Protein backbone atom coordinates (compact mmCIF):
# COMPACT_ATOMS: atom_id res chain seq x y z
CA UNK A 1 0.00 0.00 0.00
CA UNK A 2 1.08 3.53 -0.75
CA UNK A 3 2.88 5.13 2.17
CA UNK A 4 1.42 8.47 3.24
CA UNK A 5 3.06 9.43 6.49
CA UNK A 6 6.33 8.40 8.06
CA UNK A 7 7.59 9.56 11.43
CA UNK A 8 11.26 8.95 12.18
CA UNK A 9 13.13 9.40 15.47
CA UNK A 10 10.63 12.00 16.58
CA UNK A 11 11.39 13.76 19.84
CA UNK A 12 9.55 16.51 21.64
CA UNK A 13 10.70 18.23 24.81
CA UNK A 14 8.74 20.70 26.85
CA UNK A 15 11.63 22.29 28.73
CA UNK A 16 13.41 19.47 30.48
CA UNK A 17 10.40 17.18 30.21
CA UNK A 18 10.80 14.71 27.35
CA UNK A 19 7.28 13.99 26.17
CA UNK A 20 8.20 12.06 23.04
CA UNK A 21 11.39 10.00 22.89
CA UNK A 22 12.36 8.51 19.59
CA UNK A 23 9.07 7.70 17.92
CA UNK A 24 9.07 5.75 14.65
CA UNK A 25 5.97 4.73 12.77
CA UNK A 26 4.32 5.02 9.42
CA UNK A 27 0.83 5.15 7.99
CA UNK A 28 -0.14 3.74 4.62
CA UNK A 29 -3.20 4.53 2.55
CA UNK A 30 -6.28 2.94 4.07
CA UNK A 31 -4.70 2.31 7.47
CA UNK A 32 -6.75 2.91 10.56
CA UNK A 33 -4.22 3.31 13.33
CA UNK A 34 -5.37 3.59 16.91
CA UNK A 35 -3.00 4.98 19.50
CA UNK A 36 -3.75 3.91 23.05
CA UNK A 37 -1.94 4.43 26.31
CA UNK A 38 -2.35 6.10 29.67
CA UNK A 39 -2.68 9.85 30.07
CA UNK A 40 0.63 11.65 29.77
CA UNK A 41 2.18 8.96 27.58
CA UNK A 42 2.52 11.46 24.70
CA UNK A 43 -0.32 10.29 22.44
CA UNK A 44 -1.86 13.71 21.89
CA UNK A 45 1.53 15.40 21.56
CA UNK A 46 2.44 12.93 18.82
CA UNK A 47 -0.73 13.77 16.93
CA UNK A 48 -0.18 17.51 17.39
CA UNK A 49 3.39 17.14 16.12
CA UNK A 50 2.13 15.40 12.98
CA UNK A 51 -0.12 18.40 12.36
CA UNK A 52 2.70 20.80 13.29
CA UNK A 53 0.60 22.37 16.02
CA UNK A 54 3.66 21.50 18.08
CA UNK A 55 7.14 21.84 16.62
CA UNK A 56 9.12 18.63 17.14
CA UNK A 57 12.45 19.02 18.94
CA UNK A 58 14.20 16.58 16.63
CA UNK A 59 13.47 13.80 14.19
CA UNK A 60 11.49 14.07 11.01
CA UNK A 61 7.99 13.79 9.63
CA UNK A 62 7.65 12.75 6.00
CA UNK A 63 4.47 13.27 4.03
CA UNK A 64 4.58 11.26 0.80
CA UNK A 65 8.31 11.01 1.33
CA UNK A 66 8.96 14.76 1.71
CA UNK A 67 9.90 16.31 5.03
CA UNK A 68 7.30 18.72 6.39
CA UNK A 69 9.89 20.16 8.76
CA UNK A 70 12.12 21.62 6.05
CA UNK A 71 12.07 25.41 5.95
CA UNK A 72 10.57 25.76 2.47
CA UNK A 73 7.37 23.89 3.28
CA UNK A 74 4.01 25.64 3.01
CA UNK A 75 2.61 24.66 6.40
CA UNK A 76 -1.02 25.76 5.87
CA UNK A 77 -1.41 23.76 2.67
CA UNK A 78 0.18 20.73 4.33
CA UNK A 79 -2.32 21.05 7.19
CA UNK A 80 -5.15 21.22 4.67
CA UNK A 81 -4.20 17.71 3.57
CA UNK A 82 -4.22 16.45 7.13
CA UNK A 83 -7.63 16.80 8.76
CA UNK A 84 -7.79 17.09 12.53
CA UNK A 85 -10.63 16.49 14.96
CA UNK A 86 -10.04 17.80 18.46
CA UNK A 87 -11.12 16.64 21.86
CA UNK A 88 -12.75 20.02 22.51
CA UNK A 89 -14.34 20.27 19.02
CA UNK A 90 -12.96 23.77 18.32
CA UNK A 91 -15.81 24.74 16.03
CA UNK A 92 -15.69 28.41 15.07
CA UNK A 93 -18.10 30.07 17.50
CA UNK A 94 -18.71 33.04 15.22
CA UNK A 95 -20.08 30.92 12.37
CA UNK A 96 -23.03 28.61 11.98
CA UNK A 97 -22.69 24.92 11.17
CA UNK A 98 -22.69 25.38 7.40
CA UNK A 99 -20.21 28.26 7.50
CA UNK A 100 -17.92 26.17 9.70
CA UNK A 101 -17.78 23.53 6.99
CA UNK A 102 -17.51 26.00 4.09
CA UNK A 103 -14.96 28.55 5.26
CA UNK A 104 -11.84 26.56 4.52
CA UNK A 105 -12.95 25.08 1.18
CA UNK A 106 -14.06 28.52 -0.03
CA UNK A 107 -11.38 30.80 1.39
CA UNK A 108 -8.36 28.51 1.49
CA UNK A 109 -8.91 25.84 -1.13
CA UNK A 110 -10.71 28.26 -3.47
CA UNK A 111 -13.53 25.84 -4.23
CA UNK A 112 -16.45 27.67 -5.93
CA UNK A 113 -19.12 28.57 -3.38
CA UNK A 114 -21.90 26.42 -4.81
CA UNK A 115 -19.64 23.40 -4.97
CA UNK A 116 -18.32 24.00 -1.46
CA UNK A 117 -21.87 24.23 -0.20
CA UNK A 118 -22.81 20.98 -1.86
CA UNK A 119 -19.71 19.35 -0.44
CA UNK A 120 -20.42 20.65 3.07
CA UNK A 121 -24.03 19.47 2.84
CA UNK A 122 -22.85 16.06 1.68
CA UNK A 123 -20.58 15.55 4.67
CA UNK A 124 -23.04 17.09 7.12
CA UNK A 125 -25.58 14.65 5.82
CA UNK A 126 -23.13 11.81 6.35
CA UNK A 127 -22.73 12.73 10.02
CA UNK A 128 -26.46 13.33 10.42
CA UNK A 129 -26.19 17.07 11.01
CA UNK A 130 -27.60 18.38 7.74
CA UNK A 131 -30.71 19.78 9.38
CA UNK A 132 -28.68 21.92 11.77
CA UNK A 133 -26.89 24.06 9.18
CA UNK A 134 -28.32 27.31 10.57
CA UNK A 135 -27.38 26.66 14.18
CA UNK A 136 -24.45 28.31 15.89
CA UNK A 137 -22.18 25.87 17.76
CA UNK A 138 -23.33 27.20 21.14
CA UNK A 139 -26.76 25.65 20.58
CA UNK A 140 -25.45 22.15 19.88
CA UNK A 141 -24.77 19.28 22.26
CA UNK A 142 -21.25 17.90 22.58
CA UNK A 143 -21.94 14.94 20.34
CA UNK A 144 -23.50 17.16 17.70
CA UNK A 145 -20.56 19.55 17.85
CA UNK A 146 -18.12 16.71 17.37
CA UNK A 147 -20.06 15.36 14.40
CA UNK A 148 -19.98 18.82 12.80
CA UNK A 149 -16.25 18.99 13.54
CA UNK A 150 -15.82 15.70 11.68
CA UNK A 151 -17.81 17.05 8.74
CA UNK A 152 -15.65 20.18 8.77
CA UNK A 153 -12.50 18.10 8.65
CA UNK A 154 -13.92 15.94 5.84
CA UNK A 155 -14.94 19.00 3.83
CA UNK A 156 -11.31 19.90 3.19
CA UNK A 157 -11.00 16.37 1.73
CA UNK A 158 -7.82 15.47 3.56
CA UNK A 159 -5.67 12.48 2.67
CA UNK A 160 -5.41 11.50 6.29
CA UNK A 161 -7.60 12.24 9.28
CA UNK A 162 -6.28 12.69 12.81
CA UNK A 163 -8.59 12.22 15.80
CA UNK A 164 -7.36 13.53 19.14
CA UNK A 165 -9.47 11.78 21.78
CA UNK A 166 -12.68 12.63 19.93
CA UNK A 167 -14.99 11.30 22.62
CA UNK A 168 -13.15 12.23 25.80
CA UNK A 169 -15.08 15.46 26.37
CA UNK A 170 -18.47 13.88 25.74
CA UNK A 171 -21.18 12.64 28.07
CA UNK A 172 -21.37 8.84 27.98
CA UNK A 173 -24.66 8.80 26.05
CA UNK A 174 -23.13 10.91 23.27
CA UNK A 175 -20.01 8.81 22.79
CA UNK A 176 -21.91 6.24 20.71
CA UNK A 177 -23.11 8.64 18.01
CA UNK A 178 -19.59 9.95 17.42
CA UNK A 179 -17.94 6.52 17.41
CA UNK A 180 -20.55 5.31 14.95
CA UNK A 181 -19.62 8.08 12.54
CA UNK A 182 -15.89 7.38 12.88
CA UNK A 183 -16.56 3.65 12.46
CA UNK A 184 -18.37 4.30 9.19
CA UNK A 185 -15.40 6.34 7.94
CA UNK A 186 -13.10 3.45 8.81
CA UNK A 187 -15.28 1.03 6.88
CA UNK A 188 -15.05 3.07 3.71
CA UNK A 189 -11.28 2.85 3.83
CA UNK A 190 -10.26 6.30 4.96
CA UNK A 191 -6.76 6.72 6.30
CA UNK A 192 -7.00 7.66 9.94
CA UNK A 193 -4.96 7.97 13.09
CA UNK A 194 -7.09 7.87 16.22
CA UNK A 195 -5.92 8.64 19.73
CA UNK A 196 -8.50 7.11 21.99
CA UNK A 197 -9.39 5.68 25.36
CA UNK A 198 -12.25 3.62 23.88
CA UNK A 199 -10.64 0.19 23.83
CA UNK A 200 -13.56 -1.74 22.39
CA UNK A 201 -13.80 0.79 19.61
CA UNK A 202 -10.05 0.63 18.92
CA UNK A 203 -10.24 -3.15 18.79
CA UNK A 204 -13.16 -3.13 16.37
CA UNK A 205 -12.22 -0.45 13.82
CA UNK A 206 -8.43 -0.43 13.69
CA UNK A 207 -6.17 -2.19 11.26
CA UNK A 208 -3.28 -1.50 13.62
CA UNK A 209 -2.97 -0.54 17.26
CA UNK A 210 -0.06 1.34 18.80
CA UNK A 211 0.44 1.26 22.55
CA UNK A 212 2.40 4.24 23.86
CA UNK A 213 4.08 4.42 27.22
CA UNK A 214 6.22 7.22 28.61
CA UNK A 215 7.03 8.84 25.27
CA UNK A 216 7.88 5.74 23.28
CA UNK A 217 5.95 3.23 21.19
CA UNK A 218 5.97 0.27 23.52
CA UNK A 219 4.13 -2.19 21.34
CA UNK A 220 2.51 -2.17 17.95
CA UNK A 221 0.44 -4.72 16.05
CA UNK A 222 -2.92 -5.92 14.91
CA UNK A 223 -5.84 -5.39 17.31
CA UNK A 224 -5.99 -9.15 17.91
CA UNK A 225 -2.35 -9.25 18.93
CA UNK A 226 -2.43 -6.19 21.18
CA UNK A 227 -5.72 -6.94 22.87
CA UNK A 228 -5.55 -10.70 23.20
CA UNK A 229 -1.88 -11.57 23.43
CA UNK A 230 0.23 -8.52 24.26
CA UNK A 231 3.92 -9.28 24.69
CA UNK A 232 5.28 -6.34 26.68
CA UNK A 233 4.72 -5.90 30.39
CA UNK A 234 3.46 -2.27 30.29
CA UNK A 235 0.89 -3.21 27.63
CA UNK A 236 -0.35 -6.11 29.72
CA UNK A 237 -0.54 -3.96 32.84
CA UNK A 238 -2.36 -1.17 31.01
CA UNK A 239 -4.95 -3.45 29.45
CA UNK A 240 -5.37 -5.35 32.71
CA UNK A 241 -6.11 -2.08 34.48
CA UNK A 242 -8.44 -1.09 31.73
CA UNK A 243 -10.56 -4.24 31.51
CA UNK A 244 -10.83 -4.52 35.27
CA UNK A 245 -12.02 -0.96 35.66
Amino acid sequence: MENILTVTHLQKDFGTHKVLRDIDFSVSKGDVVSIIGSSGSGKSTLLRCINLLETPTSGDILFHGASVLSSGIDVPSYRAKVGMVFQSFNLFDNMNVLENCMISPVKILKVPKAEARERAMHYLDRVGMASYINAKPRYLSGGQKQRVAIARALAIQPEILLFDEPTSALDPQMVGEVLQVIGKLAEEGRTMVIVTHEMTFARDVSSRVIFMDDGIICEEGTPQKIFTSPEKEPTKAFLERFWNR
Partner: protein
Amino acid sequence: MTTSLPSDFWGRVLFILQRYGTSYLKGAGTTLLISIVSTIIGCIIGFGVGVVQYIPIDKRSPWYKRALLRVAKVIMKVYVEVFRGTPMMVQSMFIYYGASQLLGINMSMWFAAFFIVSINTGAYMAETVRGGILSVDIGQTEGALAVGMSPLRAMNYVLIPQALRNIMPQIGNNLIINIKDTCVLSVIGTVELFFSAKSVAGTYYTYFESMTIAMVLYLTMTIAASKLLRLWEKKMDGPATYDLATTDTLAFTSGLLNISTKRPANERPL
Protein backbone atom coordinates in the same frame (compact mmCIF):
# COMPACT_ATOMS: atom_id res chain seq x y z
CA MET B 1 -40.10 91.27 21.43
CA THR B 2 -38.35 92.03 24.65
CA THR B 3 -34.64 91.61 25.13
CA SER B 4 -34.83 91.45 28.90
CA LEU B 5 -34.48 88.03 30.56
CA PRO B 6 -37.47 86.38 32.21
CA SER B 7 -37.24 86.29 35.99
CA ASP B 8 -37.80 82.56 36.55
CA PHE B 9 -35.38 79.70 35.82
CA TRP B 10 -37.48 77.77 33.28
CA GLY B 11 -38.42 81.01 31.61
CA ARG B 12 -34.75 81.79 31.10
CA VAL B 13 -34.07 78.29 29.80
CA LEU B 14 -36.86 78.66 27.26
CA PHE B 15 -35.63 82.13 26.32
CA ILE B 16 -32.14 80.79 25.64
CA LEU B 17 -33.49 77.86 23.70
CA GLN B 18 -35.63 80.10 21.50
CA ARG B 19 -32.73 82.37 20.68
CA TYR B 20 -29.82 79.96 20.60
CA GLY B 21 -31.43 76.56 20.17
CA THR B 22 -29.79 76.04 16.80
CA SER B 23 -26.33 76.81 18.09
CA TYR B 24 -26.78 74.17 20.81
CA LEU B 25 -27.93 71.66 18.22
CA LYS B 26 -25.04 72.55 15.95
CA GLY B 27 -22.67 72.10 18.89
CA ALA B 28 -24.23 68.77 19.76
CA GLY B 29 -23.98 67.71 16.12
CA THR B 30 -20.29 68.60 16.05
CA THR B 31 -19.74 66.68 19.28
CA LEU B 32 -21.50 63.61 17.88
CA LEU B 33 -19.71 63.78 14.56
CA ILE B 34 -16.27 64.07 16.15
CA SER B 35 -16.93 61.32 18.70
CA ILE B 36 -18.45 58.81 16.28
CA VAL B 37 -15.89 59.28 13.50
CA SER B 38 -12.99 59.33 15.96
CA THR B 39 -14.23 56.23 17.77
CA ILE B 40 -14.35 54.38 14.45
CA ILE B 41 -10.89 55.58 13.39
CA GLY B 42 -9.62 54.89 16.89
CA CYS B 43 -10.94 51.33 16.72
CA ILE B 44 -9.15 50.78 13.42
CA ILE B 45 -5.91 52.12 14.91
CA GLY B 46 -6.52 50.01 18.00
CA PHE B 47 -7.06 46.85 15.96
CA GLY B 48 -3.89 47.51 13.98
CA VAL B 49 -1.77 48.12 17.06
CA GLY B 50 -3.44 45.40 19.12
CA VAL B 51 -2.95 42.76 16.43
CA VAL B 52 0.72 43.66 15.97
CA GLN B 53 1.26 43.53 19.74
CA TYR B 54 -0.40 40.10 19.78
CA ILE B 55 1.84 38.56 17.07
CA PRO B 56 4.48 36.46 18.81
CA ILE B 57 8.09 36.88 17.65
CA ASP B 58 8.84 33.61 15.89
CA LYS B 59 12.43 32.50 16.35
CA ARG B 60 12.32 30.63 13.05
CA SER B 61 11.50 33.65 10.89
CA PRO B 62 14.38 35.55 9.24
CA TRP B 63 16.24 38.14 11.33
CA TYR B 64 15.01 41.19 9.41
CA LYS B 65 11.40 40.19 9.97
CA ARG B 66 12.01 39.75 13.67
CA ALA B 67 13.86 43.10 13.84
CA LEU B 68 11.06 44.87 12.01
CA LEU B 69 8.44 43.39 14.31
CA ARG B 70 10.48 44.34 17.40
CA VAL B 71 10.86 47.96 16.23
CA ALA B 72 7.15 48.18 15.37
CA LYS B 73 6.24 46.82 18.78
CA VAL B 74 8.46 49.33 20.59
CA ILE B 75 7.07 52.28 18.61
CA MET B 76 3.51 51.17 19.30
CA LYS B 77 4.24 50.63 22.96
CA VAL B 78 5.59 54.19 23.24
CA TYR B 79 2.52 55.51 21.40
CA VAL B 80 0.15 53.73 23.75
CA GLU B 81 2.01 54.84 26.89
CA VAL B 82 2.29 58.50 25.81
CA PHE B 83 -1.32 58.97 24.78
CA ARG B 84 -2.81 56.93 27.58
CA GLY B 85 -0.60 58.62 30.12
CA THR B 86 -1.26 62.30 29.40
CA PRO B 87 -4.48 64.34 29.56
CA MET B 88 -6.27 64.83 26.27
CA MET B 89 -6.69 68.53 26.99
CA VAL B 90 -2.92 68.99 27.28
CA GLN B 91 -2.35 66.83 24.20
CA SER B 92 -4.76 68.98 22.18
CA MET B 93 -2.85 72.17 22.87
CA PHE B 94 0.53 70.42 22.62
CA ILE B 95 -0.26 69.01 19.18
CA TYR B 96 -2.24 71.97 17.85
CA TYR B 97 0.29 74.64 18.81
CA GLY B 98 3.30 72.36 18.47
CA ALA B 99 2.42 71.56 14.89
CA SER B 100 2.27 75.19 13.89
CA GLN B 101 5.32 76.31 15.88
CA LEU B 102 7.62 73.35 15.30
CA LEU B 103 6.56 72.04 11.93
CA GLY B 104 4.90 75.10 10.48
CA ILE B 105 1.70 73.17 9.90
CA ASN B 106 -1.49 75.06 10.58
CA MET B 107 -3.94 72.32 11.32
CA SER B 108 -7.53 73.06 10.57
CA MET B 109 -9.69 72.92 13.66
CA TRP B 110 -11.56 69.91 12.25
CA PHE B 111 -8.47 67.95 11.37
CA ALA B 112 -6.96 68.62 14.79
CA ALA B 113 -10.15 67.51 16.52
CA PHE B 114 -10.46 64.23 14.62
CA PHE B 115 -6.75 63.57 14.89
CA ILE B 116 -6.51 64.09 18.64
CA VAL B 117 -9.60 62.13 19.62
CA SER B 118 -8.85 59.26 17.20
CA ILE B 119 -5.29 58.84 18.31
CA ASN B 120 -6.38 58.88 21.94
CA THR B 121 -9.09 56.30 21.39
CA GLY B 122 -6.60 54.19 19.43
CA ALA B 123 -4.19 54.13 22.38
CA TYR B 124 -6.89 52.82 24.70
CA MET B 125 -8.35 50.42 22.14
CA ALA B 126 -4.95 48.84 21.41
CA GLU B 127 -4.82 47.25 24.84
CA THR B 128 -8.51 46.39 24.72
CA VAL B 129 -8.08 44.62 21.38
CA ARG B 130 -5.05 42.70 22.60
CA GLY B 131 -7.07 41.58 25.60
CA GLY B 132 -10.02 40.75 23.36
CA ILE B 133 -7.89 38.50 21.16
CA LEU B 134 -6.30 36.85 24.19
CA SER B 135 -9.77 36.14 25.58
CA VAL B 136 -10.66 33.96 22.58
CA ASP B 137 -10.04 30.32 23.39
CA ILE B 138 -6.77 28.92 22.00
CA GLY B 139 -8.79 26.05 20.52
CA GLN B 140 -10.32 28.49 18.03
CA THR B 141 -6.86 29.28 16.65
CA GLU B 142 -5.90 25.62 16.56
CA GLY B 143 -9.13 24.72 14.79
CA ALA B 144 -8.45 27.42 12.21
CA LEU B 145 -4.85 26.31 11.65
CA ALA B 146 -5.97 22.69 11.40
CA VAL B 147 -8.27 23.39 8.45
CA GLY B 148 -5.36 25.00 6.61
CA MET B 149 -5.63 28.68 7.50
CA SER B 150 -2.45 30.71 7.81
CA PRO B 151 -2.09 32.56 11.13
CA LEU B 152 -3.12 35.77 9.36
CA ARG B 153 -6.28 34.21 7.96
CA ALA B 154 -7.09 32.60 11.30
CA MET B 155 -6.84 36.08 12.77
CA ASN B 156 -9.04 37.53 10.05
CA TYR B 157 -11.82 34.94 9.86
CA VAL B 158 -11.94 33.55 13.37
CA LEU B 159 -10.10 35.58 16.01
CA ILE B 160 -10.95 39.17 15.11
CA PRO B 161 -14.71 38.61 14.67
CA GLN B 162 -14.85 36.95 18.07
CA ALA B 163 -12.56 39.51 19.69
CA LEU B 164 -14.72 42.30 18.24
CA ARG B 165 -17.82 40.79 19.81
CA ASN B 166 -16.02 40.42 23.14
CA ILE B 167 -14.90 44.04 23.23
CA MET B 168 -18.15 45.63 22.02
CA PRO B 169 -19.03 46.82 25.55
CA GLN B 170 -15.62 48.49 25.74
CA ILE B 171 -16.11 50.14 22.35
CA GLY B 172 -19.41 51.48 23.70
CA ASN B 173 -17.60 52.80 26.73
CA ASN B 174 -15.12 54.56 24.51
CA LEU B 175 -17.84 56.16 22.43
CA ILE B 176 -19.53 57.50 25.55
CA ILE B 177 -16.23 58.77 26.93
CA ASN B 178 -15.55 60.46 23.60
CA ILE B 179 -18.97 62.16 23.53
CA LYS B 180 -18.17 63.68 26.90
CA ASP B 181 -14.47 64.31 26.44
CA THR B 182 -14.68 66.16 23.14
CA CYS B 183 -15.50 69.13 25.36
CA VAL B 184 -11.78 69.51 26.04
CA LEU B 185 -11.36 70.44 22.39
CA SER B 186 -12.88 73.81 23.26
CA VAL B 187 -9.34 74.80 24.31
CA ILE B 188 -8.28 74.76 20.65
CA GLY B 189 -11.47 76.49 19.54
CA THR B 190 -13.56 73.55 18.35
CA VAL B 191 -17.16 74.72 18.48
CA GLU B 192 -18.70 71.62 20.03
CA LEU B 193 -21.53 71.49 22.54
CA PHE B 194 -19.61 72.74 25.56
CA PHE B 195 -18.09 75.63 23.60
CA SER B 196 -21.55 76.66 22.34
CA ALA B 197 -23.08 76.40 25.80
CA LYS B 198 -20.30 78.49 27.31
CA SER B 199 -20.62 81.18 24.66
CA VAL B 200 -24.36 81.49 25.20
CA ALA B 201 -23.86 81.50 28.96
CA GLY B 202 -21.36 84.35 28.66
CA THR B 203 -23.74 86.49 26.63
CA TYR B 204 -26.42 86.68 29.31
CA TYR B 205 -24.57 85.47 32.40
CA THR B 206 -26.91 82.50 32.50
CA TYR B 207 -24.40 79.78 33.38
CA PHE B 208 -26.73 77.51 35.30
CA GLU B 209 -29.45 77.64 32.67
CA SER B 210 -27.09 77.12 29.80
CA MET B 211 -25.30 74.21 31.46
CA THR B 212 -28.64 72.62 32.29
CA ILE B 213 -29.39 72.51 28.58
CA ALA B 214 -25.91 71.13 27.87
CA MET B 215 -26.34 68.47 30.58
CA VAL B 216 -29.63 67.31 29.09
CA LEU B 217 -28.15 67.18 25.59
CA TYR B 218 -25.05 65.28 26.69
CA LEU B 219 -27.12 62.78 28.64
CA THR B 220 -29.49 62.27 25.72
CA MET B 221 -26.59 61.56 23.40
CA THR B 222 -24.81 59.14 25.73
CA ILE B 223 -27.97 57.21 26.59
CA ALA B 224 -28.93 56.98 22.94
CA ALA B 225 -25.42 55.79 22.10
CA SER B 226 -25.43 53.05 24.71
CA LYS B 227 -28.91 51.85 23.69
CA LEU B 228 -27.93 51.71 20.03
CA LEU B 229 -24.78 49.78 20.83
CA ARG B 230 -26.76 47.25 22.86
CA LEU B 231 -29.01 46.74 19.86
CA TRP B 232 -25.99 46.25 17.65
CA GLU B 233 -24.53 43.69 20.06
CA LYS B 234 -27.80 41.77 19.96
CA LYS B 235 -27.68 41.81 16.20
CA MET B 236 -24.12 40.45 16.23
CA ASP B 237 -25.21 37.58 18.45
CA GLY B 238 -27.73 36.54 15.85
CA PRO B 239 -31.18 35.16 16.61
CA ALA B 240 -31.76 33.21 19.81
CA THR B 241 -33.48 30.63 17.66
CA TYR B 242 -32.43 28.68 14.65
CA ASP B 243 -34.26 26.93 11.83
CA LEU B 244 -34.08 23.20 11.50
CA ALA B 245 -34.14 22.24 7.87
CA THR B 246 -36.59 19.35 8.02
CA THR B 247 -36.39 17.24 4.91
CA ASP B 248 -34.31 17.64 1.82
CA THR B 249 -31.61 20.02 2.88
CA LEU B 250 -29.93 20.04 -0.51
CA ALA B 251 -33.01 21.29 -2.29
CA PHE B 252 -34.02 23.92 0.25
CA THR B 253 -37.63 23.67 -0.75
CA SER B 254 -38.87 22.02 2.39
CA GLY B 255 -40.50 23.67 5.34
CA LEU B 256 -38.41 25.08 8.12
CA LEU B 257 -39.03 24.20 11.70
CA ASN B 258 -38.21 26.95 14.13
CA ILE B 259 -36.45 25.79 17.26
CA SER B 260 -36.52 28.19 20.15
CA THR B 261 -33.78 27.80 22.66
CA LYS B 262 -34.33 29.04 26.16
CA ARG B 263 -30.88 30.48 26.49
CA PRO B 264 -30.70 34.25 25.77
CA ALA B 265 -28.58 35.21 22.81
CA ASN B 266 -25.84 36.93 24.74
CA GLU B 267 -25.28 34.15 27.22
CA ARG B 268 -22.31 31.94 26.56
CA PRO B 269 -22.26 28.29 27.42
CA LEU B 270 -20.10 27.40 30.40
